């Protein structure tokens, strides 16, 4: 059985920089951030996702549990795991450092090949369009922006 929840195609790689459960967490939160996954949507059970990804069911469960404790997912007894109807806002202070670091890295890469700041801004615009291509509704996108 192959399961796709509204465009959330998860891929994991063993031996990657991050443990597998972190890779799953990252991809689910990313799908939420760009509106490919919506509040109230049902996720596959941890056993189904485990079979699809060929990883231990407990690993998926760990990812779901962590996301639940962060307030992104909720488990309804006997019904399954869902995206919370009200998503938590990530704290700016927690994320700011990583955003700044990513910005410095992006700029240094771009300058090395002779791009200037305007080019980089254009690249960011393109990336934004790509990210939101999978977003289903404008409302979802607006809600995400508000949360950012």
């Amino acid at each position: 059985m192959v399961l796709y929840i509204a465009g959330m195609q998860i891929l994991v790689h063993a031996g990657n920089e991050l443990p597998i459960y972190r890779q799953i967490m990252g991809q689910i939160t990313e799908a939420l951030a760009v509106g490919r996954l919506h509040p109230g949507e049902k996720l596959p059970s941890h056993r189904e996702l485990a079979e699809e990804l060929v990883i231990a069911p407990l690993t998926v469960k760990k990812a779901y549990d962590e996301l639940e404790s962060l307030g992104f997912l909720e488990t309804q007894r006997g019904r399954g795991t869902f995206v919370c109807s009200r998503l938590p806002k990530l704290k700016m202070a927690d994320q700011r450092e990583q955003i700044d670091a990513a910005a410095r890295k992006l700029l240094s890469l771009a300058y090395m090949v002779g791009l200037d700041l305007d080019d980089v801004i254009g690249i960011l615009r393109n990336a934004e369009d790509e990210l939101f291509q999978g977003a289903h509704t404008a409302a979802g996108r607006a809600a995400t922006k508000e949360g950012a």
Partner: protein
Amino acid sequence: MNSVLEFLNVVRAYVRGVPILDGVTFSVAEGEVVGLLGRNGSGKTTLIHIAMGMLFPQAGSVRVFGSSPNERAVEVKKRIGYVAEEQVLPRTSSIAELIAFHRYLFRRWDDTLEREILDRFGLHTNSKILGLSKGQARAVALLCAVCHRPELLVLDEPAAGLDPAARREFLEVAIQFLNCAGATILYSSHYMNDIERLGSRAVMLDGGKVRLDSTVDRLREEYCLAVVPVHSLPDPDLLKKEPGCLGTRMYYANWHVVFQGSPEQVKARLEQSLGSDGVRCERMNLEDFFVELLGGKQSDDLS
């Protein structure tokens, strides 16, 4: 939680005075998936043979479902599925005959699982074992080990010598089995990526003992590798005395040291306590972890 498998100070030598297992202690709880890691000759297969009642421990004890696998051999074996490292299947039998034989031995048999495994590996029941590829033969061995829905599945390097696609298919069956039966699994493997996919816990054998016993996620997140130039710190004992040091080896002009702690913490601590410049700290995946901890030129071996 109930422990399905218990090793207590297990000792076993093939040559007198040279124990291959020298006091191995750990237990596997119901529902756990434990990967047994270690270099060739570290005693993984010996330990598995002891669990299966195929070898006696010379000291210490082993309990499977709370019983000795030697004293209550049949009773215990009925609840176990086992794929040996070099599984020998009767060459002139057909797959159908082999399945019939196992059905006869085990009262409970899952026809659906049997069908699924046959389909997944493209096996025809009228094929003879001698005509099967290595991967297909391993699949048949796996089929015979899981279709009676054992409570404990023991796999000794189940995927050794298989191509990556066959290995993945093998894993798929194991995951499916885990899902439907909620069984306990002990398996040895040299494929670290497979361990990461299937395993929740890794037990590493080294020098006849359990060198490390931890969940795979903790290994990935709570340990790091520090690379320290030898010229800045000629004496590795100073590194070994640092808290959280698991092992040190020399690699070209650097010490490679496995530490418990995040890269940032360890780097700061080393710079402060040893005043050593040029320390680099990084996280490791399971394969790097294995190499750094068990690879050549460990400082204990240098003299």
